[in-house]
């Protein structure tokens, strides 16, 4: 008989909606060993090809099963600098776990039986951090004489910095905000990625010799050419996706209509949920509507319902999405968690207009019902509005979580840096080099929004190309 998958323990939903503490608990050693033992160590493991950074999943799970946790940690770290982060936020059900031999053919995402690779990665990541296991920077004389600038301290920038630093390259990371981590800190809530974990992972980079300068917006305070003039031999742009998209419907600028970025930044980065001890305010509606179906929408909804609970408001937070649950791009776990926490879902709903009161505060949303039409270019079935199906939902707060566009602060002042019609930086897909020699890019500023691990995948590729580039220069 096949062994039952081990599910990570989770905090009870009634308790967890009252704070921002982590929801999913780390495996105990016994659980980790039981789950690792389920892996059948395929001769040709497919899971590895499902990982955007190519972690040798088979080997690390094999080491775990033999209780060689140090070995497993270093196996992961060969490919991924941030196992504790990725083990928590990777959409494993679309990646390694979907490729797992235990996933049934034709499933849209990983089957329940697929190995809990992300939980195992997280166990090992936390173990390594707890034991302060350290990857040492390899001394390479040719490379240790050069320095590289990394713009942005989000997943792409941090990953690139880590890859370069472990080869002995001096790296300076420039971050525009007052704190590091980019979307990992302003976007992803602490109940999914605790701040001490994030800080530990960033500290491990500093221990590798990476220097981080916050409050420094490249493109404003320094131009790309000035970085070269200051002696940086190469530059990596991990700018992230900046500008929030809106729906473009009437009433969208009414008070208490937030972009997900603003709402999450106020809470995650500025601790608005601790107002007035922290000074950044955020409003909390009695009836909150979140528009969108991605991870950001789930994060916004789960933050919103927590704020309602914490402020003694009868919780009423609804996610409105144009398609059905199966098309939602969010992680399945996040959808499940949101539902457990009391977030309501209204599918096949397309917002048409927001209406407000005399003071300009939103009061209701008018929307249409949709049905699913033909699949679009991406293979997802397109929502088609049913004529005459218009209806109203009362809401005194709305959060728009429908994606992000490119931030133009740097690209706008760097004409030599070629961008596409979306404002994304154009790169050579083999090397991630931009139209400027020695300038590389990765993450959401290349090809639009993706996941943390995809950003890291690009950053790793760029780091490899930067090392080649520097090697050639050093010769």
């Amino acid at each position, binding site marked *: 008989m096949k062994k039952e998958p081990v599910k990570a323990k989770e905090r009870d939903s009634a308790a967890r909606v009252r704070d921002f503490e982590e929801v999913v608990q780390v495996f105990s050693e016994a659980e980790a060993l039981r789950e690792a033992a389920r892996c059948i160590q395929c001769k040709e493991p497919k899971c590895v090809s499902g990982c955007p950074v190519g972690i040798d999943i088979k080997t690390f799970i094999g080491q775990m099963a033999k209780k060689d946790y140090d070995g497993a940690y270093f196996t992961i770290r060969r490919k991924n600098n941030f196992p504790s982060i990725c083990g928590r936020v990777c959409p494993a059900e679309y990646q390694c776990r979907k490729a797992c031999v235990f996933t049934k053919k034709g499933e849209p995402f990983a089957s329940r039986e697929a190995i809990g690779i992300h939980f195992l990665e997280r166990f090992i990541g936390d173990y390594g951090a707890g034991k302060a296991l350290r990857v040492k920077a390899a001394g390479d004389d040719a490379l240790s004489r050069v320095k590289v600038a990394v713009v942005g301290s989000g997943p792409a920038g941090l990953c690139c910095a880590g890859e370069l630093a472990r080869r002995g390259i001096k790296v300076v990371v420039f971050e525009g905000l007052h704190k590091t981590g980019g979307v990992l800190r302003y976007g992803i809530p602490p109940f999914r990625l605790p701040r001490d974990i994030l800080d530990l992972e960033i500290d491990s980079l500093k221990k590798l010799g990476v220097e981080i300068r916050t409050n420094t917006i490249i493109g404003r305070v320094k131009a790309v050419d000035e970085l070269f003039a200051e002696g940086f031999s190469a530059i990596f742009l991990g700018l992230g996706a900046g500008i929030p998209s809106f729906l473009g419907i009437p009433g969208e600028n009414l008070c208490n209509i937030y972009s997900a970025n603003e709402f999450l930044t106020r809470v995650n980065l*500025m601790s608005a949920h601790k107002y007035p001890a922290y000074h950044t305010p955020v409003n909390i509606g009695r009836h909150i509507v979140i528009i969108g179906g991605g991870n950001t929408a789930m994060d916004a909804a789960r933050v919103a319902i927590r704020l309602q609970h914490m402020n003694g408001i009868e919780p009423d937070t609804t996610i409105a999405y144009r398609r059905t649950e199966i098309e939602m791009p969010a992680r399945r776990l996040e959808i499940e968690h949101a539902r457990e926490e009391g977030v309501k879902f209204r599918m096949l709903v397309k917002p048409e207009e927001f209406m407000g009161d005399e003071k300009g505060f939103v009061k209701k949303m008018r929307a249409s019902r949709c049905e699913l039409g033909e699949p679009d270019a991406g293979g997802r079935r397109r929502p088609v509005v049913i004529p005459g199906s218009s209806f109203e939902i009362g809401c005194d707060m709305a959060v728009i979580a429908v994606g992000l566009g490119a931030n133009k602060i740097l690209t706008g002042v760097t004409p030599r840096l070629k961008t596409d019609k979306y404002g994304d930086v154009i790169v050579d897909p083999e090397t991630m080099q931009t139209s400027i020699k020695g300038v590389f890019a990765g993450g959401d500023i290349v090809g639009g929004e993706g996941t943390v691990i995809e950003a890291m995948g690009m950053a790793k590729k760029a780091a490899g190309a930067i090392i080649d580039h520097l090697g050639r220069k050093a010769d």
Partner: protein
Amino acid sequence: MKITSREVLADSQGVSIVKLVIQSPAIAAKAKAGQFVVLMVKEEGERIPLTIVEADPGKGTVTLIVQEAGLTTKLLAGAKAGDSLYSIVGPLGHPTVIKNYGKAILVGGGVGIAEIYPVAKALKGAGNHVTVIIGSRAKGLLILERELKAAADDCIVMTDDGSYGRKGFVTEALKELLERSKYGLVYAVGPIPMMKAVSGVTRPFGVFTLASLNALMVDGTGMCGCCRVSVGGKVKFSCVDGPEFDAGQVDWQELSSRNSIYNEKEKHICRLRNAG
């Protein structure tokens, strides 16, 4: 991020306006007229935008002028020389387009007077004939009069209560000027009702009118979308598309209501502070 000097410019009728000089060589080296910084007073603080009034690349300092309104501006205005800010980032926003417009009028109301000062100097430097109209509720609240008189060709002072200069609103003086002569630019900074009134006055004369908006912001780099404002029916972000916009195209009602989003919360936190 050290505050090198602090000076009280006005303190009257419960309104206090303070000038702070802050050590920030990187920002000072790049700042241009019309740009702003986003700063935090302390780690628990908010991020707020403030216009750069003066930048001295030689000394590596930027000058900010702040009027006490909410908690953050109170904390900032209460800081002492020698204190350090938790963070400051900039310069942000597009600089004012400085060119020869011929004759220009700059209208500053209240603490907005601080914001027209760098633009007045830059326009004067570009060969414009510069008239400034500055207004405040009363004499005790008027700032930078001496500096603006030195920077501009003409300086008209208006006070609401007639305690100094002429009695009345800045728009009255503006209208008279526009009736008498041709101007290439009107530039206005002040409370929203004042900027709205200025755009109303200039519209019939067809004179190019810019206003520097004071929308709420968080990051200041286009990421949060908090500062969105409708201009000519299109949604713009004040932080990256502005802060200056064609005053005749701005939806002032929307800006005014969006800026009131946290009024209740502000009152609450200020009451708590006062009680504490």
